[in-house]
């Protein structure tokens, strides 16, 4: 992978990960589920993101996949401090976020931007899209005319004629055009990293391909780093250099895209990949690879969170929580599963080790 031209804001050099998340945690109190006598002590918590650690390399695209409700979107918002994490550390280019000697949240948001899934609700219906794009630079202190020039330029960058589309309102645009405006809005802040929360899920397949190509093109041209969240495995395979698989608020597997798709380690990843419709009719499967819904994140199962649906589950799986084997280096492929830990006592683990 070729790294983009050096950015003046680059502090750590090419070897410093652009973003490191360490043990990020966010639990939400459930409304109406208070304990006895309404004391918060007994309040139930949704463990949306529960101890997630990973690093994003400069210039790469890290794909994040998982079922609905596994905490992907919460994770995206945690990375921008749109939701403040309960615990955990975020390090942006060597500076700890919101720490006394680190990088302030406001400064972080100048360098990390987000593209939202719902292109309808992510644009102000009473604002011409040009003004929506210009809002970021304007808030950052640029005069209105300069902010508007940035907006014009960004609209052109995403393939929308600024003169034609700038003065329009969101309801006058198609879904693909709105998503382009959303991308332009994020880029108007001049970010180094863009968190894309299901940016193409709401689009038609043909438009989806156009937007994905646009994203790849922009990444190259502007030297961006992407964190790409999706539930669509083929999209992630197309765009991501590395992939992170989430299940119930935890990372279950992480690795380079081709390795992970060729040889998934975690039973959940295997099931996810098997659930994709095959192009080959002879290889279509009749039985669903996993059955049932994910367990309630309010009360996640003990031990490995996947053991309730895992075909290889054994006693050790419900007793102990498997750790994500320390993944050193960017090419490391690791899974949080007892099968891949020879010391775990899982019957398949010993065979694998042998």
């Amino acid at each position: 992978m070729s790294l983009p031209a050096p950015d003046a804001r680059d502090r750590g050099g090419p070897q410093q990960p652009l973003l490191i998340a360490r043990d990020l945690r966010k639990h939400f109190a459930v409304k109406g589920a208070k304990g006895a006598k309404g004391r918060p002590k007994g309040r139930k918590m949704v463990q949306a993101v529960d101890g997630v650690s990973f690093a994003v390399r400069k210039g790469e695209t890290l794909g994040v996949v998982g079922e609905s409700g596994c905490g992907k979107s919460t994770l995206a918002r945690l990375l921008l401090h749109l939701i403040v994490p309960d615990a955990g550390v975020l390090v942006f280019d060597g500076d700890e976020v919101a720490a006394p000697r680190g990088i302030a949240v406001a400064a972080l948001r100048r360098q990390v931007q987000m593209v939202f899934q719902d292109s309808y609700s992510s644009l102000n219906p009473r604002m011409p899209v040009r003004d929506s794009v210009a809002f970021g630079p304007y808030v950052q202190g640029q005069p209105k005319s300069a902010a508007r020039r940035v907006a014009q330029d960004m609209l052109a960058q995403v393939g929308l004629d600024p003169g034609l589309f700038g003065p329009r309102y969101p309801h006058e645009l198609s879904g693909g055009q709105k998503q382009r405006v959303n991308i332009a809005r994020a880029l108007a802040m001049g970010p180094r990293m863009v968190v894309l929360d299901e940016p193409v899920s709401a689009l038609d397949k043909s438009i989806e391909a156009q937007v994905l190509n646009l994203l790849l093109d922009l990444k190259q041209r502007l030297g961006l780093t992407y964190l790409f969240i999706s539930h669509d495995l083929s999209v992630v395979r197309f765009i991501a250099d590395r992939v992170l698989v989430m299940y119930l608020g935890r990372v279950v597997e992480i690795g380079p895209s081709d390795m992970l798709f060729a040889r998934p380690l975690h039973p959940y990843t295997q099931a996810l990949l098997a659930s994709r419709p095959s192009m080959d009719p002879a290889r279509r499967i009749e039985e669903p690879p996993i059955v049932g819904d994910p367990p309630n994140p309010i009360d996640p199962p003990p031990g490995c969170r996947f053991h309730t649906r895992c075909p290889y589950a054994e006693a050790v799986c419900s007793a102990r929580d498997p750790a994500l084997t320390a993944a050193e280096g960017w090419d490391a492929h690791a899974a949080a599963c007892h099968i891949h830990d020879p010391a775990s006592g899982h019957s398949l683990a010993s065979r694998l080790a042998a």
Partner: protein
Amino acid sequence: MSAATGSPDLAIAPQALDTQAVPATQVRSYWQSVLYRLRHDPVTLAFAAIVLAIILTAIFAPEVAPFDPYRDSIIGRLKPFGWRNHLLGTDDLGRDMLSRLIYGGRIALLMGIVPVVIASAIGGTLGVVGGFAGGWINTAIMRTMDVFYAFPSVLLAVAIAGAMGGGILNGMLALTLVFIPPICRIAETATSQVRSLDFIEAARASGAGPLTIIRHHVLGNVLAPVFIYASSLVSVSMLLASGLSFLGLGVRPPTPDWGLMLSTLRQAIWVQPAVCAMPGVAIFITSVCFNLVSDGLRAAMDVRL
């Protein structure tokens, strides 16, 4: 007409395909498009013209009114339409009905518009603050509003005006207090609907503080529903004000006021039914016109038609 041809630095022309999906239409600002739709709505325009005529007549009452509204006459009491140039007859003290209706319009419009404007400012602010802040601030504001909301509006207005004594100022104050809770609730609902949308989150992500977000992203979305609702309250306010006067809690005689006139003339309803009904007709026409104009505004201001 390709969007790509306009910008030379565009290396992604093939992807610009879906930019052609929408044909180039004439681009208008929001208020221009509202005006455009209003201009093509003859019903609303007609009633807006009547409202305008009523307002102008009230403002220029001394020039328009054919007689002095206070000059009474012992022999000319309760005369029918057209008696000695009194176009709408005379009241129980022989004063010209038309002139009194014209002057009464001043009070009616004052009592109709001023309380609604003040209540919109106060209630709208409270609603936006509560809806945007959420949490206990919202609970505190909205539960307080609910206390006032629990009373029927007529009863509340009568109670407040009665407690403070009559008069135009106290009447307007009472009406203002009555209108704050519903307007606050409308503003709060609109604000909390907008607050949960992604574009607010995007604005936060671009570093905007709450006041900037409210000014640029919330107010525009809240103004329209509040304005539409408030415009429909004008006629309610006029009716309530007439009711207060009717009960003796608003304007004092001999000041001409539609509610008060209706109240005093009801005793003569058997003598000159048509003349005695005139203040009621004035109230009816004005409030219907305001309501229809408000309806037209509602239609014109809804972008997502």
